[in-house]
């Protein structure tokens, strides 16, 4: 019934996910690239393949690992891409470059280095922060020990501090 449908709750439009428009633009750019410069797209697709795969499985907000890997892979892909552009944007040249193990290996090694940096950098930072905190805790503990010795204050219970 029309009346019944009119009196029902108005369905809220689902909120657009942030960055969805950017993804759409990125897809458009990739589509344009694949259409207008297919050999270059093939070359970059092959060289950045590990980064693109991680991009699919990275669940962290902002996909920092995948982005780092793609950036490092891209750094290693600039030279092959220029070489392809300079020697003719053909599929044959693209496949020649891809058949060069050194070219692909370098790009993928750079991608792996990016992954390594993305994994190791947080650990190093964490260790640094912890070391700073430990140093400050030691200084505070020494100050308290001085008060205890001077005034006979009972020592702090470590368990209570952890609670």
């Amino acid at each position, binding site marked *: 019934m029309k009346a019944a449908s009119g009196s029902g709750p108005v369905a809220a439009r689902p909120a657009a996910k942030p960055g969805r428009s950017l993804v759409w633009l990125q897809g458009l750019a990739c589509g344009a690239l694949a259409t207008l410069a297919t050999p270059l797209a093939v070359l970059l697709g092959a060289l950045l393949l590990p980064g693109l795969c991680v991009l699919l499985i990275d669940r*962290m907000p*902002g996909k*920092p*690992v995948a*982005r*780092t*890997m*793609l*950036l*490092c892979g*891209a*750094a*290693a892909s*600039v*030279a092959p891409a*220029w070489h392809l552009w300079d020697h003719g944007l053909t599929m044959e040249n693209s496949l020649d470059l891809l058949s060069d193990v050194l070219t692909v290996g370098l790009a993928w090694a*750079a991608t792996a280095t*990016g992954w390594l*940096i*993305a994994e*190791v*950098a*947080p*650990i*190093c*930072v*964490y*260790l*640094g*922060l*912890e070391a700073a*905190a430990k140093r*400050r*805790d030691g200084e*505070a*503990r020494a*100050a*308290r020990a001085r*008060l*205890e*010795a*001077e*005034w*006979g*204050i009972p020592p*702090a219970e470590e368990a*209570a*501090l*952890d*609670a």
Partner: protein
Amino acid sequence: MAEKSAEKPAAREGGRGAPALIGGRYQVDFAAPLAGAGGGVMAFVARDQQNAASGLMALQIRPNAPARVHAIELLSKSAIPGLLLPLAHGVTFTAEGSEAGFVICGAPPGPSLAAAPRAWGERELLDCVLRPAAMVLDALATRGVTHRAIRPDNIFQGSAGEPVTLGAAWANPPASLQPALFEPPYAAMCHQAGRGEGSGADDIYALGVTMLTLALGRPPLAGLDDTAIIRRKLDLGSYAALVGEARLPAMIADLLRGMLAEDPVHRPPPQLYLDPSAARARRLAARPGRRAQRALKIADQPIWDARSLAYALARRPEEAVHLVRSHYLDHWLRRSLGDAVLAGRADDVVRQRSEFPPEDSRADAMMTMRLIAVLDPLAPLCWRGVSLWPDGLGGVLAEGLQDNSELAGKIDDLVAAEATAGWALMRPELCDVTAIRQTAQHQRMWQRIRGLGGGLARISYALNPLQPCASPLLAGRWVARLADLLPALEAVSQQAERRRGEPVDTHIAAFIAAHQDGRLGGDLGAFAGDAAGAEPQLASLRALSRLQAAFPAPLPGLAAWLIERAEPLIERWHNRARRAETLTQLRHLAQAGQLLPMLALFDDRQALAADAQGLKQALAAAAKIDAERAAWRAASAERRRRATRIGHEIALGSGMMALAVSVGWLVLG
């Protein structure tokens, strides 16, 4: 003139084993005891360093039987012929090496009258015994002192026909060594140490019994125990009970009739006996007590009159409760004794009791005490089986606190109930109610002081000025005056095994409190406080330092002892450096033996306040540190998240930089 070693402390500085002089001039010869000369007290020959010819003796005071300080002080300045007067009192070392108190007095001129019993003639009795003794009693009466130890074995005669000399009665509580035979029944029924100073009439009574004994040549009522003698005196009257069927000269019999009168008021004063004929002529007719038609039996003893009933109830207070609850007492008083007035007064007492719960034992004791006072107004105060006169409380307490905890418990209850005031109110015409009530309130107030410095000990020391301090710390020492306390404690401090406790215990605090002068009053208030914390130690130090100011002498041992026990005082300083500094200063002061600077160090309120403020600030700083540390520990997860974010930013930056370098190299290279 009396001289006390208190005025010459150096007299006791001879050390153990070295003979010390009493009053600075009298030396006791322990190798020469005088048997029978002290009237029941141990006596030794005493020598006057300033007059070797004088015959003196020293009477040893027992710690639980304090000497009669008021009598000694009054009589030591007197000259009364026919009496062994006290000359001085003080402390010296006994042959065993311990300290003991002694009273110095004249030695007897000869043996006692009990040494060779014989029947004395009338003339000899009047001239050698009655007149000399009456002169002495008259002289004592003018000084407000009683003798209370008149009996044949304490009366001495140089040779036959000479006037007798009354023996000493100063080294123990009044009448405490008198057999029941020689005391009026109302004194004899009392606890031996609780007979009180009494009156001259009591001395006249004792003189009468002594004369009877001498006239008969033997003691009357021989073979009867004290209880039987008292009961017989109450039942028959003293004269009839003592003289019985004996044949006496008419003069003596008439004199004895007056001397042995039941009511002290009916006994002629000593002055009258200077002329026996006049005393004989003075007769006061006393109405005999009403006798019951049928006897009341208490513990198988027949009771025929009210005062015998009062005595029976005094000895067996539980019977009073039984008689009252069964209404048999009222029945017997009305029907058998036929005294409706007495029954009505007893009813009033029972009615007062009904205001309290039936299980209240103190109310029972109060009722019994009042009943006895109603039945026999001349009777002493009777409380839970103990009889005493109010001014004999000190003597009973001295014995109870040292030897008899049950007795002390009863006296404790007596004081708590202010029983003396209740007793006085029942017989206002026979005593000074206001004075007795005030005394009872004072004693109750001292008893209620909690902690150190109060309780029964305080009362005992206040009532017995010459009672030595009974503190276990002072065992073997005789400290009966404040001046002797600090030297004794200093000597004790040299013995490591005695330094385990506090230098001021309950007895010493009570002793100080009882002997305090105005300077110590405020300090001793702290003894009454809660025993927790450092206050008792501070109060001890304060009192002892004030004592040192009053009796100056260095006390290094006592000072070191106080420091050992002053841990709570030192702990009042929270700053450890200040604490250590204080301890160092204290040890330095202890070597000099001065307590006042130590007190000043402990009692520096301004510095203590600054220390407390410092502690407060330190605690605040510690709390802040603890809070910060707890916050850092709690932020560990946050640090991990932050590290991840920064690490990823660094990685992205690295990637972008690599890309930029790669592009730049391609463009520029």
